[in-house]
């Protein structure tokens, strides 16, 4: 039994923290709300660190690391709201690697930036693969992939699609079976759709008989990509919770009312202990997801969905508590608290949302109970 980081994993995390610290990402997150050009271009930093090849096997020019290492990097990004394109890139690279695709050398070398165009796997009560809709509660139909590899359909709110070179698209073939194709981004229509959190690059992607290259992958590879994306956005949230809690604690110790530090009041103390509780639960589930990704594929859907659910709610709770602890000043434009609040509110609604993750936890457990 050893649920701690290896020396290599510690080093990866420290290196990520160190390189991200060289850019003023939090300040940029505020400026970019009014001036999108203020957002730093972190693609060179990503390439320097080799994160673009993180999940690509060594013989194809990558680092050959696993899902857990990817989660650790995203956690560091989340701590400082770094606008890296990794949420879109990493699941895409995992699919390309599984397919042994011809683009891998260019992706590992940083010459081609791929983005994952996701589709959600079926559940116990929904037999179809489905995608995010532009608006409304109903999910959209997965894109259709014809026998010649051409793609037709729309996927909304695709992370890191704007500016990507290659789209790794998950859809269904003529028989309704899941399939994936690589599409040159120039052959798709990508409508940038940044909302509320300027650090989160999003786009609505439309294909109209776009030429695609069939990728030789299994259904399991495509499920893995979806759940990997869940763990990555959850890890970002876990990182953001840590920064938010640290901000709250610092203020609770130095701000006095009625002659006492506000952190001495039970109401404040209990609220922040609740943030800690949710943060620790999310941390435990990150270990579960990391372990399942490597050693227990049958539980990865459950672990990843539980992690996503816990971390999404933890960040919502943490950012609201942070504003409460700061009082009115926490809700002002100059403060960092609203930037993390914005991150929480948008993140919770992407890639199915935390609501869908909770439902998936139930789905996996009910399927297992029925099979037992």
């Amino acid at each position, binding site marked *: 039994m050893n649920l701690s980081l*290896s020396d290599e994993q510690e080093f990866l995390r420290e290196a990520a923290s160190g390189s991200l610290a060289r850019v003023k990402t939090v300040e940029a997150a505020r400026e970019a709300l009014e001036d999108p050009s203020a957002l730093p271009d972190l693609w060179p930093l990503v390439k320097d660190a080799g994160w673009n090849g993180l999940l690509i096997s060594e013989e194809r020019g990558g680092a050959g690391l696993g899902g*857990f290492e990817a989660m650790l990097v995203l956690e560091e990004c989340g701590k400082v709201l770094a606008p890296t394109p990794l949420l879109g890139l990493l699941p895409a690279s995992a699919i390309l690697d599984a397919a042994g695709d011809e683009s891998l050398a260019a992706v590992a070398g940083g010459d081609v930036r791929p983005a994952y165009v996701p589709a959600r796997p079926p559940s116990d009560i929904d037999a179809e693969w489905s995608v995010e809709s532009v608006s409304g509660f109903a999910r959209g139909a997965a894109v259709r992939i014809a026998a010649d590899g051409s793609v037709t359909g729309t996927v909304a709110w695709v992370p890191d699609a704007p500016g990507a070179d290659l789209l790794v698209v998950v859809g269904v073939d003529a028989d309704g079976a899941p399939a994936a194709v690589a599409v040159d981004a120039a052959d798709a229509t990508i409508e940038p759709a940044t909302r509320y959190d300027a650090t989160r690059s999003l786009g609505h992607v439309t294909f109209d008989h776009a030429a695609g290259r069939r990728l030789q992958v299994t259904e399991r590879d495509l499920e893995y990509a979806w759940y990997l994306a869940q763990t990555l956005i959850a890890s970002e949230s876990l990182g953001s919770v840590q920064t938010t809690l640290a901000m709250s604690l610092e203020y609770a110790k130095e701000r006095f009312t009625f002659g006492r530090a506000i952190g001495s009041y039970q109401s404040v*103390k209990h609220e*922040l*202990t609740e943030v800690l509780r949710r943060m620790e639960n999310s941390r435990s589930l990150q270990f579960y997801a990391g372990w399942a990704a490597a050693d227990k594929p049958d539980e990865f859907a459950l672990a990843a969905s539980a992690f996503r659910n816990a971390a999404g709610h933890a960040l919502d709770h943490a950012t609201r508590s942070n504003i409460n602890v700061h009082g009115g000043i926490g809700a002002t434009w100059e403060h960092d608290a609203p930037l993390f609040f914005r991150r929480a509110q948008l993140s919770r609604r992407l890639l199915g949302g935390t609501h869908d993750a909770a*439902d*998936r936890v139930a789905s996996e457990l009910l399927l297992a109970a029925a099979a037992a």
Partner: protein
Amino acid sequence: MDLNDTPEQAGFRDQVRSWLKEHKGQAPPSTGDSGDSAYIDSRRAWQRQLAEAGLAGLTWPKEFGGQGKGPIEQVIVNQEIAASGVPGILDVIGIGMLGPCLIAHGTEDQQSRYLGSMLHGDEVWCQLFSEPAAGSDLAAVQTRAKRGDDGSWSLTGQKVWTTNAQFAAYGLLLARTDADVPKHKGMTMFIVPMDGEGVTIRGLRQITGEAEFNEVFFDDLNVAADAVVGGVGNGWGTALTVLMYERLTIGLGSEGFGYRSDRFAKALSTDKAACADPEVRQRLGDLSTDLLAVRFTGYRTLTALSKGQIPGPESGLAKVTTVNAAVAAGELLADVIGPDALSEDSEWFHMISFLPGLKSAGGTEAILRNTIGERVLGLPPEPRLDKGIPFSELRAKEKEAVG
């Protein structure tokens, strides 16, 4: 990250498993009536068998009859015992918490007199700490110990929430020996005989209707000077050792309550309407998320233990999560099943009725959150009115305040 056994641990697990396979036929049922002395005797005999096979007191040093092993081996034994469907040791409190306290603070005489018979189940122990007015604020105990001219002590007071008192031979009792000093300083720990003159034990019935705990009354119980553990006036420090081992014992057996997401999901899975209901699914998803997190928090605790670290108050958050998730599960099951979930023969009757009390076990959730806020998050303490004031004055002030 590795959840598998090392080769040494796997070898140990095999040994434990094969011993259990060979002997499980001799084991008594896992549950029974704690008021039935024949059943309790069968559990004592089983504990003796486990002890003789080296499956009790794993972490006790060898010189006291233990195995000198680490917490991981203890967990392996717990897991294998649970998997084979036999009961574990009867005296979890003695072996897990009170024995280690005697090992740390007891005299040689106390150690040689009590530890062996504790380990073998010949003498079961109980913990006499909580009182009606001293629970989360344990240092407010009022049970008085007065020293006579011959050096012996006379104990008077009331203890509550005492598990196993009805068949225990001895108890470890925290008493106030000096009310004229601040409250943490005037306490002393005693070994008391549960069949002594002046000891009255009464079952304390709870919501379930069963008496899973006891109240114990002391009316001038006389004990000799050598009943003191850890020195006169050092009771608080001695108590903290027990509380540390209490966290450890709970941390090593955290899934023992049976509050598991797969079990709850199985119960719901037969109700098709419930399985299709979005609200039921959200509730199941949320409470299961918490319970899965707790399982891995347990593995994190084990990792820390195997590196020689002691779990701190933050491990109490896992208890908060477990209890609240189990409460949510009971709510969901009762909503889905209806009133039958509340009937006495329902699988969920005990859980639903037991949890409201469990929420305060080992300290209320509110006080636990205070402690964690201060010790883990480093937040400033709540202003306290009991610091540096002699206990007797404090009591007088409290009485004055309520008129």
